[in-house]
């Protein structure tokens, strides 16, 4: 005998219900994408205390705009786009001046970065070195312009392909490649400035 249990509505069905104004139908969508959006928002803004509020605002915006979702791209990509735009605005609002110095690293951390930078292969870092490098790069990122930060996070931390990034940011793939190279170059330049200015 066949299984008579009613089949759970598909994602598209939940989306259609949301589009007709059913707020309850948004719950399964939140539950499906919550982890992913938390991760993305955390990596983009890197402020543990603000992440939950930011994610809540992202979902609020998504629900308000859900009637404009036309099923052309995956719902996850559409949601990522809203999340990235929201975080981008947040970063621009909260941006620390590039002039202000943030190098409050410990002496030990600074020494480790220096010695690691001089070694030919930073691949085999020990735990302490790895932590120092992580802290250092986190500060480099915090200081980077919002545009660089978003594109580097999507590529290097979220490991999205150039094609996915182009979809999320609504850009051509060639533009994404150019911006990625520019962002990487700026990070390396900031690193060099730090080494020279220390």
């Amino acid at each position, binding site marked *: 005998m066949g299984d008579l249990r009613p089949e759970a509505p598909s994602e598209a069905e939940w989306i259609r219900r949301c589009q007709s*104004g059913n*707020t*309850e139908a*948004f*719950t399964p969508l*939140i*539950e499906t994408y*919550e*982890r992913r959006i*938390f*991760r993305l*928002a*955390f*990596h983009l803004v890197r402020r*543990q205390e603000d*992440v*939950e509020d930011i*994610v*809540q605002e992202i*979902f*609020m915006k998504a*629900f308000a705009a859900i009637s404009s979702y036309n099923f052309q791209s995956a719902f996850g990509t559409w949601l990522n786009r809203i999340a990235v735009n929201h975080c981008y605005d947040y970063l621009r609002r909260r941006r620390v001046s590039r002039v202000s110095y943030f190098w409050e690293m410990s002496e030990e951390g600074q020494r480790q*970065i220096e010695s*690691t*930078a*001089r*070694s*030919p*292969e*930073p*691949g085999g*870092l020990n735990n302490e070195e*790895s*932590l120092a*490098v*992580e802290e*250092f*790069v*986190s500060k*480099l*990122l915090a200081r980077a312009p919002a545009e660089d930060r978003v594109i*580097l996070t999507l590529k*290097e*931390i*979220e*490991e999205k392909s150039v094609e996915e990034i182009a979809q999320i940011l609504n850009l051509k793939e060639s533009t994404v490649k150019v911006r*990625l*190279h520019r962002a*990487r*170059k700026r*990070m*390396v330049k900031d*690193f*060099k400035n730090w080494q020279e200015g220390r």
Partner: protein
Amino acid sequence: MRCDVVRERIEESLELPARIKAHLQACSGCADYVRRWNLVQAGLVALAKEEPPQASLGFAERLVRRLESARGASQRRQQFIVEAGRRMVYATLLVALMLILGLVLPSSGPLRTPQAAESILAEPEVATMSPDQMIGIPDTAYAPEAAENPNGAEGAQIK
């Protein structure tokens, strides 16, 4: 090979072709760039491993409740706008109606008494007469008093 081409290739691939390796051995600027970039990349990889905070308990339910209350508020706002708009339309219509009536009806009020109305209907040329003439008061009826009274004919009529 140009340095900027080499640097772009370095960022994109882990396996470097022999030409680029040869360039790196000859160019200290690019070799420094590679070392720095590798370190930045190592830091980014370490950042990727950081676990994001967990959503607090009941996150989805709270969010849906917030959505519902926001929806209710927006519906109330919409209703208010619709109601205010409707009242504006009614008020405009009323004003327009009053204006039309003001333009259509004679300003001197010839229809105030039935006799006047009859006389108007009987003699159309009476429309050029003064209001006093229309209701049958001769011009001289209060002329002497009017001359004495600086408030004019109206004041005399009240007396």
